């Protein structure tokens, strides 16, 4: 459904018609427990910090609470809160709020995941490619590629037109920021004149 601007007369309601809610497949025990990713992230961070606590180069003559003191408190807090959060999620699975269906054709479709993974992969992948290619290709081409990938991840259906738009956009930024405001943007060592 496309977004549109709509005129509303006083007293008129513009709520769209609702045909039902989005259906997502169940994933056994993991249903509503995918949020465990957050405690997992916290434990990973805490573990990294804990290892670094021991390898840290601390000057021996330091007085009072040293550089390990505050991180130590944080590591403990990270572990405790991660465990509490995990217990909470395991006891009470939390499913995300499902979208309402306003398009009749969508009724009855069962998605396998709540997250639209292919689309997300385009967005994240675009960023990865941009980072990898920024220096070799230069700002104009790399940023145009990023623009194109993100537009695609958002469901743009005109890939050829997008290429033109993307190049126009990245070139305009290069001209405004790189040339006029002298921000240091890479010109690329393949096409541009060196570094």
């Amino acid at each position, binding site marked *: 459904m496309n977004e549109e*601007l*709509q005129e*509303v*007369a006083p007293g008129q309601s513009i709520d769209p018609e609702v045909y039902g809610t989005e259906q997502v497949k169940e994933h056994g025990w993991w249903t509503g427990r995918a949020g465990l990713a957050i405690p997992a992230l916290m434990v990973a961070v805490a573990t990294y910090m804990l290892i670094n606590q021991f390898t840290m180069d601390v000057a021996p003559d330091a007085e009072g609470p040293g550089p390990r003191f505050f991180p130590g408190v944080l590591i403990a807090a990270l572990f405790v809160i991660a465990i509490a959060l995990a217990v909470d999620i395991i006891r009470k699975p939390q499913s995300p709020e499902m979208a309402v269906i306003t398009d009749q054709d969508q009724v009855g479709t069962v998605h396998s995941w709540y997250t639209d993974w292919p*689309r997300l992969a385009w967005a994240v992948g675009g960023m990865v490619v941009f980072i990898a290619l920024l220096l070799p290709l230069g700002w104009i081409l790399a940023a145009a590629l990023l623009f194109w990938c993100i537009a695609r991840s958002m469901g743009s259906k005109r890939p050829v037109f997008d290429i033109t738009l993307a190049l126009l956009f990245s070139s305009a930024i290069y001209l405004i920021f790189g040339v006029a405001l002298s921000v240091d943007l890479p010109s690329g060592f393949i096409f541009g004149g060196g570094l």
Partner: protein
Amino acid sequence: MDALLSLMDGFGSALSPMNMLWVLVGCLLGTAVGVLPGLGSSMAVALLLPMTFALDPTGAFIMFAGVYFGGLFGDSTMAILMNTPGQGSAIASTFEGHKMAKSGRAPQALATAAIGAFTGGMISSILVVFLAPALASLSAVFGPAEYFALALFAFVATSSVVSDSVLKGLASLVLGLAIAVVGIDSVTGTERFTSGVPELFDGISLVTVTVAVLALGEVFRVASRLRRDPEAMVMVSSGRPFLSGREFREAIPAWLRGAGIGLPFGVVPVGGSEVPTFMAYGLERRLDKRSGRNKFGKGAIRGLAAPEAAGNATTGTAMASLLALGLPVSATAAIMLAAFQQYGLQPGPLLFDRAPDLVWGLLASFFIAMVVLLILNLPFAPLWAKLLLIPKPYLYAGITVFCALGIYATSNNIFDLGMLLGIGIVGFMMRRFDIPLAPLMIGMVLGPLAESSLRDALLSSNGDYSILVSSWITAILYVVLAGVVFLSLYGKLAQRRKERGTAMTDVDS
């Protein structure tokens, strides 16, 4: 009187044609970013930070003032027209504001919001002019223990009061604090958690984290859901664009009450203006019920006027605590702090002596920005909504390229772009699993202050923890903090009981 004279000087420097142009540009850009879905005023400041490198400090901060308040105006425009608040502070405005728009009174709602924001902002700016120097001299009696108490206050308040689940709020907070300890320790010069990567010696930049969490995370979230969850359409309605005399009279007390509620919250670090906007909304609602008018739920003008005034009053006084204490109470203020540091300036008591023309120029530009925004928004607010006609793919593609530009321009290396992506993915996860973002930002911002003041306090007392509660200022802070936590827990319990109650009656009926 001193303050007035200095302010006049400030107006003198801010009113130069070039600086007027920067205010105008700032207001336009700020409103434009604020209007975009999912992006609020803190994002506007972060995204536009690299643009200011080409300016001198005074010009840059004058433009920031425009961006800052412009972002707030844009936020509330979207909250009203689309029910998509860009930032927590605009949520309370959606309740009655969006209902007004739905019933065809969108222009009146936008005017109410614009005038409310103007009222709140003006009152608080006037207060800041007189308050900031006094606050600066008061801060001379603040020692490490007091600063630690303030930081702790901010941590507890944001993670417990503002978020729905205390556990999730705390999780977000400690992740933010963990990000903040990376880098060379300011006290001893020890390398911490850098794994020897030179780019991490200065710590992870606040701008990177802000852009990653607030903008890139949002882009990823939208990409992951756009096919299933197309957002609501925008409303533009024609007709009488201004408030009638009766509506105006009805809104006046709410504007003033809202501003009154908002003012003190700017100096108390509870994580920005979410709390006061909700409090202002709640007060108007109770007053409405008691007077028997029962307009709430059907688009009550007061329910919109009060939170708007409260929100802007808070943001105004928040600048006082940033300038005078060097204490950023919201994410936006934190990014402005980073901008100050980029120019080699340290906000705090000394700033008023060291860079008076900059401080007073900035304060004067607040007033100018308010007036410019009122002129821009009162007649043209519906025009801003037309920005949403930009197709979503190109809108978000443009935002993403801007994020990348901003980070590369501030850091000039690829490593920071990698950080941007990594933290952006964390930001996406947090949105996906309903973890509030505000505590992470506050933790990241105030973490270094909390750590250094705690260590200083303990160092001076030889490890005796009682120093943390020994002065009357800290005692007051902790008592107030206990009160705030108690009230919020009580409120949550009461709400839960009520929900259970209504659930039961639903089953019965």
